[in-house]
């Protein structure tokens, strides 16, 4: 019996935002929880993120933004995934995202947002519940 395939997640920092403490903590927390994690590092364009996600054949992308550019960057990543025929890669986000911005992100296809105060356990449980393997 082959071991169960792990969920593969790309943790990405889109745009110019350099606040990476949360993304790194989540990346490590996910790895410790048994997911396969790739961290893109900082200053990734949406194009670079989508290319990495497809190349690494991840099940989901976690986007981190603490500089206010989520309203442009998160939907842009989803738009590009669609263009590349990879819209089955789920996208979730984290960071500083005002409540009022969430409906638009949800509309654009962002599956969930982790705001400040989220514990590692909450994020892990959410992924276990909401992220499936790519077909």
């Amino acid at each position, binding site marked *: 019996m082959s071991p169960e395939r792990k969920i593969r997640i790309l943790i990405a920092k889109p745009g*110019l935002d350099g606040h990476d403490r949360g993304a*790194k903590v989540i990346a490590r927390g996910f790895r410790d929880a048994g997911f396969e994690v790739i961290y893109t590092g900082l200053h990734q364009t949406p194009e670079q993120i989508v290319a990495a996600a497809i190349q690494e054949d991840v099940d989901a992308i976690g986007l981190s933004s603490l500089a206010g550019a989520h309203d442009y960057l998160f939907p842009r990543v989803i738009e590009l995934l669609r263009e590349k025929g990879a819209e089955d890669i789920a996208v979730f986000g984290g960071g*500083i995202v005002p409540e009022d911005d969430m409906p638009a992100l949800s509309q654009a296809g962002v599956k969930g947002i982790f705001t400040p*105060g989220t514990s590692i356990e909450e994020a892990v449980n959410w992924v276990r519940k909401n992220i499936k393997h790519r077909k």
Partner: protein
Amino acid sequence: MFKKDELKKVEEEKEKWVEDLSKILGETPERLQRFTTVSDLEIKDLYTPVDIEEMDYSRDVGFPGVYPFTRGVQPSMYRGRLWTMRMFSGLGGPEETNKRFHYLLSQGETGLSIAFHYPTLMGYDSDSPMSRGEIGKCGVAIDTLKDMEILFQGIPLDKVTTSMTINPPASILLAMYIVLAENQGVSKKEIGGTIQNDMLKEFIAQKTFMLPPKPSLRIIVDTIEYCTKEVPRWNTISISGYHIREAGATAVQELAFTLADGIAYVEAAMERGLNVDDFAPRLSFFFDSHIDFFEEIAKFRAARRMWAKIMRERFLAKNPRSWMLRFHTQTAGCSLTAQQPYNNVIRTAYEALAAVLGGTQSLHTNSLDETYAIPTEEAASIALRTQQILAEETGVVNTIDPLSGSYFLEALTCQMEEQAWEYIRKIDEMGGMVAAIERGFPQAEIADAAYKFQRQIDSGEKVVVGVNKHATEHPPITIWRMKPEIEERQLRRLREVKQTRNNQKVKEFLDQIRMVSKNAENLMPHIINAVREYASIQEICDVWRDVFGRYSDPGYF
């Protein structure tokens, strides 16, 4: 500081006290297994003279304004002059930020501090594809001198001092400020302020990096060399621990890595042939003031004592002003919560108090809504009032270094100093901070500390009120939002500037910058020439990216 026989008596009495205590603890144990600081430093139940028996008052504690400055860098401290109330501000475009500057000045702030938006921080203009979605969002959009002119409308540069939180393009913003002053009829010999200009901590923590370490240092030394001669009232670097702490470092790591960065800068400037006593008096520092009260006060005192020793003993500086660690403080952004945001007013107040009891020269207090957005005017006003109430009502400024002599505080100051020296020794063994950064050492320490801390919060071992304890609902608050018209206006302005300026001159000066970048001349005069003609930040930075290459994030986690 105490007689041997007195200490012996205290030791004996303490033994008895411990015995009696253990009976009580048998029935009513202590509430926690360990009592720790937010940095997880274990704290004892009681401190007595025995805990500081090795201390010598003159050698270790001393007097304010006298080596080793444990009690403060100025002889009269706040009795002579209060700390500068310098609120970090920047939002939307220069018009909006100018309005915020005037507002805060009218509310009583005593110094300016500019927060730039991400494109400016990273050396991009508002019209770069890299800037999409980022314009004016977390600071003010500045592309050319034109924006700086609007930013400083109605603000006389001979009457205020300005701190600019800017790193790769620090030399460019300084050049713009110099030209601005020139245009106001204010000589660069008169202007006062600070550029953060601390690239080492960018690689470690803040991550607004652009060029690799070596060329980054070259540009920094150019600014030190230039200012030492031409802009004598300017603080050339704000050697920062704030960002290192915000990234997850412990208080000891913040202390050690900051001083180690300082050592690297002094070495780099001396390598250039500069006399340490010529530039060292204008190096300044920037620390976090986090929520663990005594740990922070001890940290500030240890920092002063350590830097004094480093400058006098290691670098053999002769001028007492070279030995003085002058610092700005910001209350800890990472201690604030999105839950129950009004709690943040309290946190900021405690953190401000620690900074003042720690002897800071300058202070920014965070606003309650900063876990959501750029602060509103109202929130920023409360933060400023926090400082004013501290200064005018609490009486903590009436005497200098009031907590000195506390057995606990003095012991903690010594303990943190000792642990910080350990780190500095380690970094020295690696070949200095640049080498340590290339190995990923401080980055790994920080990532480990950040992860450990999150685990401690998640397990409940460390409490954050409103988040993992007393986590009740709270009503939503009104937050500041960036308006799309501001972005349009910024892009229009940049287009107009590029059309109406003397593009031939701009090209000439950019070519000069390129040439000088490749040789050993000082870049500053050439940067000044270029910005005077309205060369943009990105135009200059693109030359540097081309000549020196880019630094990309190694992505440790």
